């Protein structure tokens, strides 16, 4: 490896089993995470008569269809069947399962890191586009489709063409209540929802170095919303501290040895990126989406764009989005009445997210109904130990079990048609949270502010006088 290698180059070459003449690489997969949605892949495997090549590197988790209430008697037979099918496939192939009632159950992108299954230098695949989350540890992590899931199960490898490298460098100090979610929505609004298509994004700069692991995961998670299949951050002391003592992480001498190899997982000083983007952290405000694509986002003190003043390409999409969202152009986004809130998802339901929301909600009453679904059973337990659940419940919000829940609605947690939801999730697509649902993406702190005011609101004034 030359001294001009990017983190992407290093991770790629460490996993390349073979490179074909057409440029496609056959890559070794260190960790394969499967969930209920993987049923198509297991069916393909069965049809082809293959087994699972490396069950010891494969982990299954119930999350997409996990009921957040009434787990003992699942009413919907389709949901029960999906969970049952995963349990059967895991048992048949000798794959460890984090089942519905496992004390370590949770959303796949929350429990991977939590359990120490996610480590620097690994190649991690999962049949879910938010697999980019795990790149926060300096891993090569990307989402794959069902045919690819079947391929990884059968061979423990994946064919992939190396993406181009993009660096998003964020420097400076973030303002109060400005979070990783806001950094992400900011660059996606700037570059577009296909702005990083065909690229792996490496986040660097002083702001990124100061982020916690939870925040780094949020940032890498949202890479796909800007079109990047991969997001990554070079591991450092913050990463290593997070990993130590996790159940599946190496320990003792094995950890020392691992740390030696992880130290080199960084972009060399002379390395050149295909695209370089610089962002000033101080200029980022709490950000919310107004439309039906994650790039349709503006600062909380901004106004809903007037399509007549947008570029031709964006104008039609903006008109259609405003129509769907039931919003008028030119008006301030703050003050828009909402019907409900949702705090959850692989993007923003880790302990830090719940803490910041609870800090805003403490002693307050929500003006609208809402639901809080922690990222994992362990996050739920931790939050309950800290008394956060009491703050949410006292405010009038529902405190429920962990799963993908209302981010994607597969478990029946849906937003009604025409209802407006302030949501800590990742996609404001039409119908994502339910047919006709109107989703506004924002940070957990901003979701809390929306709950208290019943409108899309700036959280910053609400935080005055409250302990940081």
């Amino acid at each position, binding site marked *: 490896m030359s001294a001009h290698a990017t983190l992407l180059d290093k991770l790629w070459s460490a996993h390349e089993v*073979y490179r074909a003449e*057409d*440029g496609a690489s056959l890559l*070794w997969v*260190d960790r394969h995470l499967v969930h209920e*949605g993987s*049923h*198509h892949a297991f*069916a393909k495997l069965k049809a*082809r008569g293959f087994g699972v090549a490396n069950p*010891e*590197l494969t982990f299954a988790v119930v999350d997409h*269809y996990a009921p957040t209430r009434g787990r003992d008697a699942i009413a919907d037979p389709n*949901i029960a*069947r999906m969970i049952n099918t995963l349990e059967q496939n895991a048992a048949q192939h000798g794959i*460890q399962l984090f089942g519905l009632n496992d004390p370590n159950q949770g959303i796949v992108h929350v429990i991977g890191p939590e359990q120490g*299954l996610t480590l620097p*230098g690994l190649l991690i695949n999962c049949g879910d*586009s938010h*697999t980019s989350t795990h790149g926060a540890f300096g891993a090569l992590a990307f*989402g*794959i*489709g*069902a*045919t*690819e899931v*079947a*391929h990884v199960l*059968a*061979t*423990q*490898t994946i*064919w992939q*063409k190396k993406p181009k490298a993009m660096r998003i460098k964020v420097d400076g100090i973030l303002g109060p209540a400005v979070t990783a979610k806001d950094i992400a929505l900011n660059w996606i609004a700037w570059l577009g*929802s*296909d702005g990083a*298509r065909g690229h792996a994004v490496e986040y660097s700069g002083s702001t990124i170095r100061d982020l916690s692991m939870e925040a780094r995961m949020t940032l890498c998670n949202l890479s*796909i919303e800007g079109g990047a*299949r991969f997001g990554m951050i070079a591991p450092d002391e913050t990463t290593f501290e997070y990993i130590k003592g996790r*159940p*599946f992480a*190496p*320990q003792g001498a*094995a950890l020392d*040895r*691992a740390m030696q190899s992880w130290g080199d997982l960084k972009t060399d000083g002379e390395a050149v990126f295909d695209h370089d983007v610089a962002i000033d952290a101080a200029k980022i405000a709490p950000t919310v989406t107004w439309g039906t*694509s994650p790039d349709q986002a503006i600062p909380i003190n901004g106004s809903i764009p007037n399509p007549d003043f947008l570029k031709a*390409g964006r104008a039609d999409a903006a008109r*259609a989005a405003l129509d769907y969202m039931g919003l008028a152009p030119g008006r301030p986004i703050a003050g828009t009445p909402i019907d409900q809130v949702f705090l959850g998802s692989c993007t923003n339901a880790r302990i830090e997210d719940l803490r910041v929301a609870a800090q805003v909600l403490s002693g307050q009453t929500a003006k609208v109904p809402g639901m809080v679904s922690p990222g994992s059973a362990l996050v739920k337990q931790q939050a309950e130990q800290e008394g956060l659940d009491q703050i949410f419940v006292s405010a009038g919000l529902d405190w429920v079990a962990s799963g993908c829940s209302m981010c*994607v*609605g*597969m478990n029946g947690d849906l937003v009604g*048609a025409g209802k407006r939801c302030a949501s800590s999730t990742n*996609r404001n*697509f*039409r*119908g*994502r949270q339910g*047919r*006709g649902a109107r989703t506004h993406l924002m940070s957990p702190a901003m979701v809390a502010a929306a709950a208290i005011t019943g409108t899309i609101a700036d959280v910053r004034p609400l935080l005055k006088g409250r302990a940081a």
Partner: protein
Amino acid sequence: MEGWRIHTGTALALPFDNLDTDQLIPARFMSQPRDAGYDDFLLYDMRRDAHGNLDPGFPLNCDSQASILVVGRNFGSGSSREAAVYALVDAGVRAVIAPSFGDIFASNAVNNGLLPARVSDADGAALLMALSGKPESASVDLETGRLMIGTMSIQFALDGAWRIKLINGWDDIDLTQRHQSDIQTFSKTRRHNAPWVWPHETH
């Protein structure tokens, strides 16, 4: 999977940007097994009113025989759900023409014999314009990378490896079996050099 070189069929315009996978197939249909076909789920909520009746004004409802879709940019962005491709394929679609595609969608498409053909912004706009009145007969040639609609002949971009895969109808698992010994050697070396990759054995 059957390979193909030339496809001739009806081309239809869906002049929308960001037709994401949640719109291509809403999540609530994804628990269904594939056997019965996913064609009914394609763009389900866009094509129907709140009561589930087909909207006669929606382009795809006027000509359900279309096998070539000309669409706006960032088609198939979002989730990794291969069900979005199943819905298209089961509805008889063989090629989608767009200025850009979601990366995961494009891989999934090729794995199911569906062509994600990339054209320039200008060509994409010209095609949408040409098809704005009504669907037209069209043909796609994988070998030459050309799309013919009426008098228009447009070059599309397609990754070389994907072109070969589509033409031959190759399945990656078959292809990978040829590299079985490389994989075994790699696995052994990895286990030796980075034993920490294998999760803690006590669990």
